[in-house]
């Protein structure tokens, strides 16, 4: 990869990295980005579904984190702290640009489209069928085909481990809507993966 080359072991642990960051050491900032930017970007991209928006939220996350470093108490680890900022940034972006999409455009009950169509048994270990990155690519691609109102709920609940209540508050919808959307998202992803896995198994 072109660009920045530094020794990532320059800081012994997160505590040392934090000291470096607070002293505005350039290497500390580079270390922080090298380690956490791909993880933060994964979260903003999965929430927002758009690379440009995800990059915007990534940048704002690091800018805000650097500005708040002095008030960071160190509890829960730098990653947890950064991911929380990133989630908030991504959700603000959603509310700013398309509030109606995330809130209204999704049915709150299971409909005919949600009924399972793929009824072939799955392999015992689907992950063993495909190369790691192939399956990961499929999971990411399937996620991005979900309607936004379903994707947001699924990502917050399953990937970012928010509770039903926290997800409802974050999106400004009811808890029962969160539950139905999560179910619909899981069913849709199951259909999409079933198509992929049955094709893989046949090859």
């Amino acid at each position: 990869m072109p660009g920045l080359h530094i020794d990532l072991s320059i800081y012994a642990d997160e505590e040392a990295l934090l000291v470096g960051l607070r002293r505005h050491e350039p290497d500390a900032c580079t270390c922080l980005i090298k380690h956490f930017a791909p993880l933060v970007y994964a979260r903003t991209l999965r929430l927002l579904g758009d690379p440009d928006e995800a990059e915007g939220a990534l940048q704002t996350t690091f800018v805000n984190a650097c500005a708040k470093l002095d008030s960071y108490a160190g509890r829960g680890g730098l990653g947890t702290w950064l991911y929380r900022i990133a989630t908030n940034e991504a959700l603000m972006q959603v509310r700013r640009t398309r509030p109606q999409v995330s809130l209204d455009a999704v049915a709150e009950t299971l409909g005919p489209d949600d009924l399972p169509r793929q009824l072939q048994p799955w392999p015992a270990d689907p992950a063993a069928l495909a190369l790691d990155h192939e399956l990961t690519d499929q999971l990411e691609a399937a996620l991005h085909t979900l309607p936004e109102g379903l994707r947001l709920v699924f990502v917050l609940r399953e990937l970012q481990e928010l509770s039903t209540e926290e997800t409802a508050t974050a999106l400004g919808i009811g808890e029962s809507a969160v539950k139905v959307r999560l179910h619909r998202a899981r069913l849709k992803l199951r259909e999409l993966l079933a198509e992929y896995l049955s094709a893989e198994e046949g090859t």
Partner: protein
Amino acid sequence: MTRHTHTPEECRRLLGQLNEYVDGDLADDLCDVLESHLAGCADCRVVLDSLTKTITLYRGLREMPVELPPDVEERLMQRLERDIHASDG
């Protein structure tokens, strides 16, 4: 292949409860009804099994980074440097 001992309506009705079932949130009496249905319905067993595997596969992504597109890292560094200089100045 289907070996239904019940109506498709029952499959549809119980589909709505699968979510709470896989999360361990379904009430005991409803679990009994669902499990008794599952025992006689191969299709619903497939749906339950694949739904559970779908969830497990996605949870595996939690700590998985994605590859940054070209120049994203460099633009991030530039933005931070700009902001740090602006706040110093």
